[in-house]
């Protein structure tokens, strides 16, 4: 049983698995994901029911805008994660910078989403047009509301971090990881929404 990977002389303590951020935040994230899951499940059901309506509706959307928004959100997640990592490596200022950049990405996302809405409203589509547009407008709006909440969380944590309002380093790290985890959740939901709404024919 002498596996070459294990060294008998390595006495460093085993790595213990740890959830990044607060457990309560993860409960919240799971609950949010449950809400989106129900929404997406209903959308899948409706899509199976009204295939042509969905195809016709998808053809009126703006996939380029969706793609740009996907890239923007991914960049936002990168900045947030980088902020957490660098601050853990002894660069406390990196967290505020990373979170601010991530929130800026969120702002870009919202601007593009709103202009998409403006184009669709201009073309005469709205929440009541048919079941497809209900799902499109409602689901993306509900998601955009989460982008806004995520931005607020990031900015609040960044500010409290910068002004030293956390009682100790452990609490500060926990808050940073919790905020970034929430932001990743928002990103993750979009990564599912984008192909379902814009790409899948």
């Amino acid at each position: 049983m002498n596996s070459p990977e294990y060294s008998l002389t390595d006495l460093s303590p085993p790595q213990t698995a740890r959830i990044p951020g607060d457990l309560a935040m993860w409960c919240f994230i799971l609950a949010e994901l449950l809400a989106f899951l129900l929404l997406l499940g209903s959308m899948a059901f409706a899509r199976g029911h009204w295939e042509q309506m969905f195809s016709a509706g998808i053809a009126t959307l703006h996939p380029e805008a969706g793609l740009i928004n996907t890239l923007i959100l991914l960049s936002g997640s990168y900045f947030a994660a980088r902020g957490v990592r660098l601050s853990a490596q002894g660069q406390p200022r990196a967290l505020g910078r990373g979170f601010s950049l991530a929130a800026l990405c969120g702002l870009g996302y919202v601007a593009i989403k709103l202009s998409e809405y403006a184009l669709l409203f201009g073309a005469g589509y709205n929440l009541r047009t048919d079941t497809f547009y209900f799902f499109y407008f409602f689901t993306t709006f509900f998601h955009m509301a989460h982008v806004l909440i995520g931005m607020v969380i990031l900015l609040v944590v960044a500010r409290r971090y910068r002004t030293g309002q956390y009682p100790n380093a452990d609490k500060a790290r926990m808050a940073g990881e919790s905020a970034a985890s929430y932001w990743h959740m928002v990103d993750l939901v979009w990564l599912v929404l984008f192909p379902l709404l814009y790409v899948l024919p």
Partner: protein
Amino acid sequence: MKYASQAVAKPYFAFAMLLFVGQIVFGLILGTQYIIGDFLFPEIPFNVARMVHTNLLIVWLLFAFMGATYYLVPEESQTELWSPKLGYALFWIFAVAGVLTILGYLLVPYARLAELTGNDLLPTMGREFLEQPTVTKIGIALVVAGFILNILMTVLKGRKTVVNMVLVTGLIGLAVFWMFSFYNPKSLVLDKYFWWWVVHLWVEGVWELILGAILAFILIKTTGVDREVVEKWLYLIIAMALISGILGTGHHYFFIGAPSYWLWIGSIFSAIEPLPFFLMVLFALSMLRQRRREHPNKAAVTWAVGCTIMAFLGAGVWGFLHTLAPVNYYTHGTQLTAAHGHLAFFGAYAMIGMAIISYAWPKLHGRECNSPQAQRMEIWSCWVMSLSMLAITLLLTWAGWIQIELQRLPGDAGAIGYMQTQDAIMHVYWMRLAAGVAFAVGLGMYLYSFLVARNTREEAPALMTAA
């Protein structure tokens, strides 16, 4: 009692219990009228009895919430109440207005009451649960505004805690949504649409914040668990309550003329509504498991834990039973709704009211808790009330099922009429009345426990003065 001004809670609690008794008396009258249609007619017609039954519920819960707030805010803020005088004055104004309104319902024909109170100047009467004359509605708004001012001023001068913040947010929400009771558009669809902004956004929205805050306060006090842990649970519960509850309003917009997309929104978001109630059960049980002290007030703990379980059953499970649009298509407005309403209101709000009274009343009378004999009686009353309410719920569910089976599921040719269906339910109504009597006995036992407590006060531990 740590602060003298907490005593303002006393008359609120006592009056809440008095109104609760009135509510149950009218409940029994209604239960009888379901069987003997002209029982007490023409003195108390069914519609009047129903109005009194539901209005007394709302008002006694408001008194209990106010009492709870006057009790817990000074203790949380670690300061005396801003103005105890205002608290007492508002109590008398609210109590007198409440009694006059109920007497108005009972002594004057409703249309005449509308005339007498100048309803035509600002018509707001004649809508379910919002039957109060416009002057009473204005009175409630003013009382609540004065109450919130008193509480805000207290909170601002004292220690800021999450429990206080959640409670105050809930109370402000209560006041804001009450404003929609003054909006009474001509279109029946719009009327119902915004009517739910009071009714639903109260009981499935902001009241849940009040419930969560009171529950958290009782659990902090009785288990001694770290505030930080309790606060995280509270945040999680209220976030879920708001996420599911606000858009969950949609489950009331099925088939009333609102846009059809509400079928989706209502179904999806109200499917999540049981979650915050389930979290409350987990919260209470986990706090008990992690408790750092054995609080002598077992009765208060019984009410608090019982409240979470019954609320989960009544609001969560029984709500979910008929909340999905395809199901609600058949169950809309049947006795299933009444089943849900009874268990949800009792579990979530009546029980939290009795939990805080159970915790605070001995303290307001200089004792840590009631004597063991009084507590035993109280815990028995909790079981009797809970089980008989569960029986009422199961029986009304059965009655609802008969309605659905005979009236709703068959096609037009096979369905039988409303009154014929009522005849088919009659035996269930008899059993429901029996369960209602059992509930009244439970309430009697609860009130009797106060007497036992008074007679055995020497056997109860005195209040510990150290914080």
